[in-house]
């Protein structure tokens, strides 16, 4: 408190500074790593709170995509007549829906990071990015359960019914999945940062995600003759080439276009970087305006 003490403390080694603004892209990976246990606990919480006090428990993770798949088969394959080639429509729509729901869930939930967690964020500090990241991981667990179910059917059609011919591109599907979910995350944290002060965008997002599904080859394939003339417009959507490559790998049917895949990767990385910059900027002060 006194001058004497101030003079004594001339070693200027401080651990951290609290300042009005961050450096531009200060990810602070070290800090994120320190909070890895929190990330793990958030994921655990997400998973177990979903099926607490339910009878069927985790089976609910399966029921939802199965029912949606049936509806899609009837709606798009039987009624609208989209061509899935030699791929059983059931299998075709199942992978589409599993992928799409992972993407849409990630985008929907991370785009509400700030508004949904204002209460916790207002009381305690931890790296805010932990929360959207935890949603990516808990979504991944849900995805894995659904995907395992798909794999069971896929193995049957590949090796028993022998109606589809997969190829070695299957090995790069984890990478495709990573790009897809990063896109959802990048988009989500950008939106949540933009909607803390002005809520207008939240209205757009709710139905925007629904509309985006029709612009992504979920219900159809790019190789379908009905779709082909819109192909170049659809490929502008960075999800398109990812979904197509997925189906190409598992079914041997679809587009594997290296140019458009690179476009998706670059698009995703740019979006993620912008998302993080804006997110880090907003997290410092959002609690005053939320």
């Amino acid at each position, binding site marked *: *408190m006194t001058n004497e*003490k*101030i003079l*004594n*403390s001339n070693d200027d*080694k*401080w*651990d*951290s*500074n*609290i*300042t*009005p*603004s961050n450096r531009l892209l200060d990810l602070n990976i070290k800090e994120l790593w*320190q*909070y890895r*246990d*929190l990330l*793990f*606990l958030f994921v*655990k*919480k997400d998973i*177990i*709170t979903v099926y*607490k*006090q339910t009878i069927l428990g985790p089976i609910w993770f399966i029921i939802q995509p199965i029912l949606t798949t049936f509806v899609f088969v009837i709606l798009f394959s039987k009624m609208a007549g989209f061509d899935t080639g030699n791929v059983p429509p059931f299998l075709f729509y199942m992978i589409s829906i599993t992928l799409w729901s992972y993407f849409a869930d990630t985008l929907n939930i991370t785009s509400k990071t700030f508004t949904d967690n204002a209460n*916790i*964020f*207002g*009381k*305690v*500090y*931890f790296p805010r990015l932990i929360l959207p990241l935890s949603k990516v991981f808990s979504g991944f667990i849900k995805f894995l359960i659904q995907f395992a179910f798909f794999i069971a059917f896929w193995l049957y059609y590949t090796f028993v019914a022998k109606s589809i011919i997969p190829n070695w591109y299957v090995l790069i599907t984890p990478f495709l999945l990573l790009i897809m979910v990063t896109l959802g995350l990048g988009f989500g944290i950008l939106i949540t940062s933009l909607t803390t*002060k*002005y809520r207008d965008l939240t209205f757009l997002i709710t139905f925007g995600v629904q509309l985006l599904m029709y612009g992504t080859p979920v219900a159809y394939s790019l190789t379908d003759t009905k779709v082909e003339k819109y192909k170049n417009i659809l490929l502008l959507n960075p999800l398109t080439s990812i979904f197509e490559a997925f189906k190409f790998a598992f079914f041997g049917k679809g587009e594997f276009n290296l140019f458009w895949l690179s476009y998706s990767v670059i698009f995703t990385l740019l979006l993620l970087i912008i998302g993080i910059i804006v997110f880090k900027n907003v997290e*410092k*002060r959002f*609690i*005053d*305006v939320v």
Partner: protein
Amino acid sequence: MSREVIKVEHISKLYRLGQVGTGTLSHDLKRWWAVVRGKEDPFLKVGVENDRTSKKSSDYAWALKDINFNINQGDTFGIIGKNGAGKSTLLKILSKVTSPTEGIIKVRGRIASLLEVGTGFHPELTGKENIYMNGAILGMTKKEIDRKFDEIVDFSGVALYVNTPVKRYSSGMYVRLAFAVAAHLEPEILIVDEVLAVGDAEFQKKCLGKMGDVASHGRTIIFVSHNMQAVQSLCKTALYLKAGQIADIGTTESVINTYMSREIRNCYSQRWEFENAPGNELAKIISAEVIPYFKDDVNIIDTSTAFDLKFEFYNAVQNQIINLSLLFYSSAGNCIFNVGTGMRTLDKGIHTGILKIPGKFLNDNIYTITLMIVKEGSSALFYLEDILTFEVVDEPRTSAWYGKWEGAVRPTLFEFELK
């Protein structure tokens, strides 16, 4: 040992008043345009001093303005001030929940803050799961929690229910569990907001004791409270905030004295000229006054101080049957009690009513008095709200417990013998 662990330099925080709405975008654009041209933010200049009682003259207010102080390692540092003085804002900035508008805070070591107990508790999760969840949110690693788990459960006293979802807990158990986690944090710097206001007396004592332990281990504690007794017993140094600025800083005792003399701005007496005295053609109120009987050289009314309330009023009608009635309101606006004089037939002229309140009767609170002049024991001739306002502060306690004394009154003058 007296190494600085926190150095606060020129910290200011600007808040926008009113709602964020359609007008905000234009402000944001103007601000952005100014920054682009390399000029100063135009809205940083217009902030008014943070004084909630004055009518606002600007859309922005400084919640904190140019705060500078240092805290040394092992200090127990108290922050006091009235509601709205900027205490919470300062705490939020120190805990990195929000950032300052200007200035810098340099920190050595890990900060953990307790602005609330039980942050991140999920009702569906069990006690055990919530201990881990809450601990991790407060900055503990899983290993640390593993190590302390038994101690935490022990401290909370809910061992039996540790595998039950916390939504089935009573609110008392919930708070105890939450505080138990918090009490076992071991950061270099611990920031505590008024969380001691929760829980029962025994538990509070345990928590204060625990915090004292933490401080004696060379850790630094920053403690914010309205409870002067708790601040005094726990903190060596203190900071007094008033309207977003430092009003005093130094030893806790001297800071609390400054606080007392500046903040307790009560209405101890009122007197009116006869012509404009409040009232009507039947009765008028002339004066009202609190007359305390101070012991020694203390001049603050505490719970042990006896005092009189004296009222003078004018009765305009000869032989009117009158009695006085007084209503005591607490700061929360509840009527604590109502006392009346007996009825008397009064002459036309000025009369006086005196109520004697003994010491050791009222609880600590801010009391607001309403005076009623009643005719024939049934209808009010005239009444005046808020005629007097005064604070009764807590008397120095002899026990080790500093929690809020429950109840509207504290009649320790009653005989209560233990044989």
